């Protein structure tokens, strides 16, 4: 029983690691587009922090065979993706949904950052300023739209509210994590290579060219793919649990009941109770 559970975990983690590397490789040629975040996020959400940490570590190390072994990048990936896996693994296993205020607070924070950047101006090359301002405005627009959608869903109620709230909250957290990824890189890389303060500041500003499109991509991809991917991963998760459920049902069926004429748990003609059948 234990062996089968471990084998299933290893198999699922191996397939997910391969999928993440394939996704990153396939989209590596498209600047600013990445789907690793949404795939790993939903995987951790469904399979939990333990599987998420396994995949995050394996992915961080194995991807180096394709992109090269750079110590600062390995440290960045190991720290960031493991923290990411712990956060979303924990979120997925929580019984209650994310607090109502979390999503709007995160969205307002990120949108305010974009607006401030667009108004004040980021000191990058004069040739890139217009493009960067355009990206900041686009991200601000998407975040504002997401906030409006969230508020509408809160008013609508029902199933849409439940699913929409969950997707919007996870999207806002994913966007914040993507921003944190670049900020972590802005600290780790200058420290590792011993940059001067000026060089570190220049590195920080050029980081916006990757951070903005990636955050935009994260917001759109997580919002659109969170629910469908969750269903796919849940069905994959249920496949592994199927055997275990059957065994539990069989052992329960073989266990003598206290009272066979118990109204709630009435025995069927093959010894199973109503709950086991369900």
């Amino acid at each position: 029983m234990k062996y089968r559970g471990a084998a299933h975990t290893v198999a699922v983690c191996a397939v997910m690691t391969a999928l993440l590397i394939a996704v990153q490789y396939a989209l590596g040629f498209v600047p600013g587009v990445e789907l690793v975040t949404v795939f790993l996020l939903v995987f951790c959400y469904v399979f939990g922090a333990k599987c998420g940490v396994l995949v995050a570590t394996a992915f961080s190390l194995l991807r180096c065979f394709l992109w090269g072994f750079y110590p600062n990048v390995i440290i960045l990936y190991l720290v960031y993706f493991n923290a990411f896996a712990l956060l979303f693994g924990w979120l997925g296993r929580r019984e209650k949904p994310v607090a109502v205020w979390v999503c709007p607070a995160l969205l307002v924070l990120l949108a305010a950052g974009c607006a401030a950047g667009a108004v004040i101006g980021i000191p990058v090359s004069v040739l890139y300023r217009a493009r960067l301002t355009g990206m900041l405005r686009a991200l601000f627009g998407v975040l504002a739209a997401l906030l409006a959608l969230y508020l509408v869903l809160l008013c609508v109620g029902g199933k849409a509210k439940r699913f929409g709230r969950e997707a919007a909250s996870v999207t806002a957290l994913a966007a914040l994590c993507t921003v944190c990824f670049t900020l972590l890189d802005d600290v780790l890389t200058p420290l590792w290579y011993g940059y001067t303060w000026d060089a570190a500041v220049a590195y920080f500003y050029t980081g916006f060219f990757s951070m903005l499109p990636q955050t935009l991509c994260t917001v759109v991809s997580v919002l659109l793919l969170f629910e469908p991917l969750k269903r796919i991963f849940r069905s994959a998760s249920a496949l592994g649990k199927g055997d275990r459920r059957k065994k539990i049902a069989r052992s329960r069926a073989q266990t003598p009941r206290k009272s066979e004429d118990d109204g709630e748990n009435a025995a069927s003609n093959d010894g199973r109770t109503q709950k086991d059948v369900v």
Partner: protein
Amino acid sequence: MKQFKGLIAAAAASAVLVCGALFSACAQDSSIGAAKAEVLASDTGHVVIEVTEGDTSKSLYDALTVFQEEEKLTFSGSESEYGYYITSVNGVEAAGDSYWAVYTTLGTLDGTSYSDAQWGTYEYEGKTLASASYGVSGLPLVAGEYYALVWTAM
């Protein structure tokens, strides 16, 4: 006498035309928008460019494109989210253990730093060029500044 004067005038006019043609042939400056730049050196190891008249809406990449059209150099590369990445200059490809480094004398302009000597320097005829903070498409053409592409082994 009249014929002699006409001959002198024709010779003078011819001399002016020839001198003008020679002068324009000798002038190395190329126009890139409102900017003018000159290729000071171009071989398989390095390319050095001097900007004589600036235009900050044009980049070093624009200048290289004009020079390539004028057959003063050749280059190729690929687009990335950080701009154009040069992989080959004058037929010399940057392999796994080498790359084409970009250097410039352009330091800080309007609060933005365009180069940092910490990442390396390159000397050219008494000028010290520092390693650029941006790629060729992020460096504006500023009057009086030097720009260099240098083949560098890691």
